């Protein structure tokens, strides 16, 4: 039996980066906010202290801080002709779980998407003519210029370390010459680079490219953010990605926002509480709150005036489908919106093997790297190339955690004496030039509910139908050789190209950059939410996160996720609260 709880002004579903952002702004505006998080409490000293944080087996290979697949996973197939099967353990991506979400175990690479990324359809069609019919690429409905102040604020909350390339229209040496105009510098200088980045930058410059430091949420120095939160200098320990930072030097919800929230009497957080559905009024025109279940199996109804979905994109999509909000997307007709335009990322790389020099990859950090943007977005002429979009090409030194990172040349067997020797010979002497490619929406790639498999509460799992598209393949074939060329110029003895071929494989780790499914846009017929993240169907329901992206750009998504969250909460406070109702009339 469902038990009723006292009403709150706002209920947040999920408490990672976006949950913390919404909660901070909404409680500061005086609202009573409750966050429901299906995972446990997590904090630095209790869950990833320096005394035990550097444990590769526990955190990565045994999934210490990821969503438990036994609680909820998704099914996967490459195309509609196949039968989707459950992802029984995580591989290709690692959804977060618990307080802070994936914001605890991210790398900290914090980019802004390019101005043209937000108008991907209109910009590319204007420049190159109509897109193929099966490319369901759309404009975001919000522009870079509108988001700029929110990018800037999120960078200040996180203390991003970087080198600006364009402040108020003035090009600055050493920064990204292609970036959209910034209103301010980064709050902190770039991180210190290692040997590998120096070699990469020199090689890229020799090719006429424009290397700049990866914008990093790993601190280059001690920093105090606008909320008074302190961040410590990064120690380059190499346990960022897939790990929590033990010494407060990676921006996360815990290190930048949550302690401030926990002081406020009008903020509450309930952990180990999984939302089952968003409830609606009988006419289906307003959300009334959410139903959730706690670990004792008790089911509760939490009434709220505003419901905001702050969970991972895959979970937000599933929750809308389970709650029967919005029309599910149908790939056969192209109609419907929920689950539409699921996108990912197209990765490839070139590994450089040195003979005499040591790269010492264990001296690393999640966002320690140099990068070129010359082949990202529409920074280069795509005429006659047969694809749109692009990706950055970077040399990062994130770690040398040996279970995960022990590259060997291509002719070495997978095991035995030859493998062992090759691991030893190369372990301290390799680096990699990676291509982080965009992923353009395609009519057939989508999310819906699985007809067979259920979670522990008996609800259908989400089903993912996804494969790389023709645009992806042409993109990676065009960009990987550039990475290879830069790699060859870095002075190593040997270069091994890890090209992106074949179908998308759900097993080896690629990125946790799953996007779409709850996309934003200008038209209720082609998007789930309007330009503010407000549901077209229920004006007091908002959705946030990378699920809003109509397609994925060639960057890590968190910077844009943060900016969109601040943009959206600003609209709630300044537009919605004075006059509750649809913020955009279709």
């Amino acid at each position: 039996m469902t038990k009723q709880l006292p009403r709150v002004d706002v209920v947040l579903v999920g408490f990672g980066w976006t949950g913390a952002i919404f909660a901070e702004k909404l409680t500061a505006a005086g609202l009573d906010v409750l966050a429901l998080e299906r995972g446990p409490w997590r904090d630095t000293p209790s869950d990833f202290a320096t005394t035990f944080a550097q444990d590769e087996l526990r955190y990565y290979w045994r999934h210490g801080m990821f969503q438990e697949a036994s609680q909820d996973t998704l099914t996967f197939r490459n195309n509609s002709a196949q039968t989707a099967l459950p992802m029984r353990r995580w591989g290709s991506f690692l959804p977060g779980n618990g307080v802070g979400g994936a914001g605890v175990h991210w790398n900290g690479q914090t980019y802004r998407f390019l101005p043209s990324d937000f108008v991907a359809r209109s910009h590319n069609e204007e420049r190159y003519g109509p897109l193929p019919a099966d490319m369901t690429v759309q404009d975001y409905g919000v522009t870079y210029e509108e988001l700029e102040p929110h990018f800037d604020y999120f960078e200040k909350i996180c203390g991003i370390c970087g080198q600006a390339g364009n402040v108020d229209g003035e090009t600055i040496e050493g920064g990204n010459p292609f970036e959209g105009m910034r209103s301010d510098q980064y709050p902190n200088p770039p991180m210190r680079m290692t040997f590998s980045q120096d070699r990469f930058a020199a090689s890229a410059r020799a090719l006429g490219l424009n290397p700049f430091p990866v914008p990093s949420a790993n601190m280059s120095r001690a920093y105090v953010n606008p909320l008074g939160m302190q961040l410590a200098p990064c120690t380059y320990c190499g346990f960022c990605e897939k790990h929590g930072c033990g010494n407060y030097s990676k921006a996360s919800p815990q290190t930048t926002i949550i302690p401030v929230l926990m002081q406020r009497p009008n903020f509450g957080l309930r952990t180990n509480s999984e939302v089952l559905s968003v409830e609606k009024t009988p006419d289906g025109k307003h959300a009334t709150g959410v139903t959730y279940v706690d670990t004792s199996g008790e089911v509760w109804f939490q009434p709220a005036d505003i419901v905001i979905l702050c969970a991972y994109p895959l979970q937000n999509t599933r929750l809308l489908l389970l709650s029967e909000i919005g029309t599910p997307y149908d790939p056969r007709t192209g109609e419907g919106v929920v689950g539409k335009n699921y996108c990912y990322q197209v990765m490839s790389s070139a590994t450089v093997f040195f003979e005499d020099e040591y790269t010492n990859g264990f001296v690393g950090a999640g966002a320690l790297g140099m990068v070129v943007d010359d082949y990202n977005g529409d920074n280069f002429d795509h005429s006659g190339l047969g694809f749109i979009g692009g990706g950055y090409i970077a040399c990062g030194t994130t770690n040398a955690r040996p279970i995960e990172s022990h590259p060997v040349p291509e002719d070495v067997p997978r095991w035995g004496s030859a493998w062992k020797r090759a691991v030893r010979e190369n372990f301290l002497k390799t680096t990699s030039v990676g291509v982080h490619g965009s992923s353009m929406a395609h009519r057939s790639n989508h999310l819906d509910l699985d007809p067979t498999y259920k979670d522990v509460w008996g609800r259908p799992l989400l089903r993912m139908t996804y494969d790389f598209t023709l645009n992806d393949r042409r993109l990676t074939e065009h960009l990987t050789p550039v990475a290879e060329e830069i790699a060859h110029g870095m002075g190593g003895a040997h270069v091994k190209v890890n090209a992106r071929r074949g179908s998308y494989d759900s097993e080896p780790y690629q990125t946790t950059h799953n996007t779409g499914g709850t996309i934003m846009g200008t038209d209720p017929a082609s998007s789930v939410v309007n330009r503010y993240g407000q549901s077209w169907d229920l004006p007091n329901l908002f959705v946030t996160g990378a699920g809003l992206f109509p397609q994925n750009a060639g960057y890590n998504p968190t910077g844009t996720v943060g900016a969109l969250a601040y943009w959206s909460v600003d609209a709630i406070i300044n537009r919605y609260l004075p006059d509750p109702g649809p913020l955009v009339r279709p």
Partner: protein
Amino acid sequence: MAGTALAASRVLASDYGRGAGMPWSPMSGEVPYYGTGSERFFSHEERRAVAAICARLIPSDDDGPGASEADVVTFIDRQMAGFYGRAQHWYMQGPFAEGTSTQGYQSEHPPAMLYRLALAELDEHCRSQMGGPFAELTEEDQDAVLTGLDEEEIAFERVSAKTFFDLILENTVEGFFADPIYGGNRDMIGWRYVGFPGTRYDYRDFVGHNGAAIPLEPVSLQGRPGWSQP
């Protein structure tokens, strides 16, 4: 079954915030615990077979120590006895199907049971084809059998030989390189062999190494010899 796994792996819902600040108390923290016990899963025969397989996957040779010196078999034994062996965190509800090569692990068996069934069939195969259990074959014959599993030339009846091979290879590498607290990588042998300095948490003094080797001894979660007085 799923319900049992859930109850065992999570704590009850809790309330935070409302001005109470961040919870914390001294002498607390989720220090590593799993796999640190002395639980075992394998029978004597199974353990012997696993040790022999690991010894071929990461051999002891002129170039340095291998899985035997690192005691990888103990690592795997403890893992199989724990939540990992039971696939407690994995989604193990049916129906089960073979799946495509891009759909990942689809065995109906959790790792421990996969090992048990596969090891029985492996020894059965070796007895009937090569005259003895795997552990008693020559290194050359062992390599031939493992190659047969890897290249899908040998098939088992009840489980996928390839799935088993991929899993034990993955677990062997884990046991060679995981922190010694989990039973393998004894005396940090795997780390010493490749030059990984272990659980150190501060390399600020070495960022400007500029391609030179960094002379640091490895440290594990429970220290190194230098932490005790001679």
